């Protein structure tokens, strides 16, 4: 079926099976490979995007449910990599392999959008759906605090 959705500010029509997860529609049909596949079962957060501003695990979100909605992926979080979360990530050299970081950044950006100054406990709650196998958690936590400082 034809699904019309807005991806990073541009309206797109994708021809997809309705049950295809948004993740694969983004990666294989829209050519946006910044959103990653890690588990396919909403267990790791690598595929996190924003749907109408809310963080969503795109591997477990049918593309048909995205019809008519506003999707932001890592490629569209900012025009030039200048979102405070992206900046903080670079300043603290958070990424190791980097693979989980699209999802981490999208989760962190969503957290800061609704809670501009999260505590460690709030960060743990918001970020525990995002696995980093390289183990960058302590830097992620510090980078969120740093980004919060910048955005407040």
């Amino acid at each position, binding site marked *: 079926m034809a699904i019309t959705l807005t*991806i*990073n500010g541009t309206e797109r029509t994708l021809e997809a099976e309705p049950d295809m997860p948004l993740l*694969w529609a983004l*990666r294989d049909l829209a050519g946006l490979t910044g959103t990653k596949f890690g588990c396919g079962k909403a267990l790791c957060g690598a595929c996190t995007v924003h749907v109408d501003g809310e963080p969503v695990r795109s591997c477990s979100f049918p593309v048909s449910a995205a019809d008519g909605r506003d999707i932001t992926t890592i490629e569209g979080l900012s025009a*030039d990599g200048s979102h405070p979360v992206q900046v903080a990530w670079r300043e603290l050299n958070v990424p190791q392999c*980097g693979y989980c*970081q699209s999802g981490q950044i999208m989760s962190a950006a969503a957290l800061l959008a609704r809670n501009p100054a999260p505590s460690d406990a709030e960060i743990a709650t918001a970020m525990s759906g995002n696995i980093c196998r390289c183990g960058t958690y302590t830097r992620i936590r510090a980078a969120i605090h740093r980004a919060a400082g910048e955005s407040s």
Partner: protein
Amino acid sequence: MNGLRRISRREFLQRTGQAGGGLVFALSVGAGCSRTPDTDAAPVSAAATDAFMPNVYVNIRTDGIVEIVCHRSEMGQGIRTCLPQVIADELDADWDRIELKQALGDEKYGDQNTDGSTSIRRHFDLLRGAGATAREMLIAAAAAEWGVPASECATREHAVHHEASGRSAGYGDLVALTDGVAAPESPTFKDPANYRYIGKSLDTIDGFAMSVGAANYGIDTTLPGMLHASIERCPTHGGAVAAFDATAAKAVPGVVDVIRLPDPEAGKAPGFLPLGGIAVLATNTWSAMQGRAALEIEWAPGPNGAYDSEKYREELAASSQKEGRIVLDRGDVAGALASAARTHSADYYAPHLAQAPMEPPAALAQVGDDGCDVWSCTQNPQATRDTVAGLLGIDKTRVRAHVTLLGGGFGRKSKPDFAAEAAWLSRESGQPVKVTWTREDDLRHGYFHSVSAQHLEAGLDGAGKVTGWHHRTAFPSIGSTFDVNAAGPSGGELGLGFTDIPYAIPNLRMEACDAKPHVRIGWLRSVCNIYHAFAISSFADELAHLAKTDPPAFLKQLLGEPRRVDPADDGAEYGNYGQGLDTHPIDTGRIAQVLDTVAGMAGWGRRMPPGSGLGIAVHRSFLSTVGVVAEVAADTDGRMRVVEMWMAIDAGLVVNPDRVKAQLEGAGIFGMSLALHGEMSATDGAIVQGNFDTYPVVRMSEAPRAIHTHILPVDAPPGGVGEPGVPPVAPAIANAWFAATGSRLREMPFRKAGIT
């Protein structure tokens, strides 16, 4: 898009048009077009006037850009930053005028297998040489042009200078003059006092790309018209397809083809070859997965169909109770135990583990008249090339193994079976094919870290000094992946934290016991050091408590006088990670220093609240030593919380301190994951775990509130960094748990004790 070139912010803006809303699609179009990642490092025509290529790692262009070739794979350890740091430093090149290229798999680069924490420790001089050679040749070219002695010229900031005459020439301008300049036989290295980049925490070269979703991994590679493949493989190791029906699969929208992969040859070691099975090829990944789910397959389970990990555990434990092969023998251990004032024995067990890199194995291949191009997240591009060539039956000069970024490796991606699958399917289908493993594929069909059982006995004298230590280890060998007759631990594996035990115990016997594999066995970050360090550092802690001695003091006593240990003195076959004991000694003084440092960092000896404890472990592996102190608390419901961690490393010379610290932080979490949660089990030959629900890893909610790291300033050649942080983590946590609760953890993962 050039897959592995560094993407600067400026370039990102150029590429994406630096406009408002529409720009991201500009990027996506670029990102999708990874047909020609810049992995081909060979300059097409390096006529001396176009570019100056003093060796395979350096290419200087007339525009002054220094192209540096990274022949090692980036999987998060930071080698794409550290490697050019070394070359650029020796070359006196400007960091901003460097372009990084990723090498294809090719013997001309020397060893490219990115494992064993070798990238710096075994290549530091090679990389320095690559830079120094280029520098001396540029000086020679300038000196000849100016008619002055080369000894009067020096390099600084991307140019050669002749102070006496005030002349200088930029590197780009000198390219045309390098024709006929001979390479020095042995270039002179810089005085370390003049290092500009070595020892500095330069930012990660791929950091910008990673922060904007523009970093290209194996799973992200695309070609026009490519098909996506998902493969159903036999649940049991060594099994094969008996019969299958693809009718329903072919009816799934998007499915294009169903192809049977060649079965593994019966009775042969698996090596790096594909596992066989049935592949579904489709126009997108989801359709391929759906088609695969619709396959009907009957399996012939093969020789391991009855494998049950619980039963196997008993066999392994029994094997560790029986006399094994003596691999190190010092003094008279039987006599020492017989005459000891007190003896103690314990058994340790650790299960199979999966590496579970965040990016599952993925590869894209295109087979055509000109051979095969394969793009993959490989740690081992030369083995990728060899394996693909072997499977396709073509000469390896016709295989181009491109290396993408790796979304983690941890040893899994040293084995190129997934790249070989893609190559096979591309040839059979006549299309470019990308193979994407699911997480379930990754966990069920991996090359597993070995299961192990160990038995230890020790004798103490009246003063609480250890007089005898008798230790047996039983585990199926990685060798079995390459040789069906491999029955047990090899000398190389035993050199990973077993025969290199540094303790000054007068009577010491180490034995290896046989064990047969029932799954593919492979490397996992720090390999056998994981279970050996767990047993040795835990058992030492047990003895410290028996002797009523503070563990750090007890460990110091075990380490004995500062001295250099050579396991060969006690009959061990010991390879010291492929490097000399003269340059990289087992130096008990240095190990003790790490111990003291980390104990000091953690404030060892401070009063702990009830239900909390500190645990310590120090372990040398990959020619570096890491000490860990863990603070652990038992919550009111009896569950374990790792509150804080301190880690100190002696890695000799360090190229990028921040990346070393990052590796320690990561090792702390990785070590926690395997200590607390990690287990792969099997029933009826099939792996039970399938995803992160059944194979949990540490998440933010479990991460310690801080992991403090410290690099000891040691004037010594570089040791390894990626792996040595892992082994001491599990025993430090177990020892802390004992300090907190009085209960001893001798089995990994600790969650088996119902405490996580």
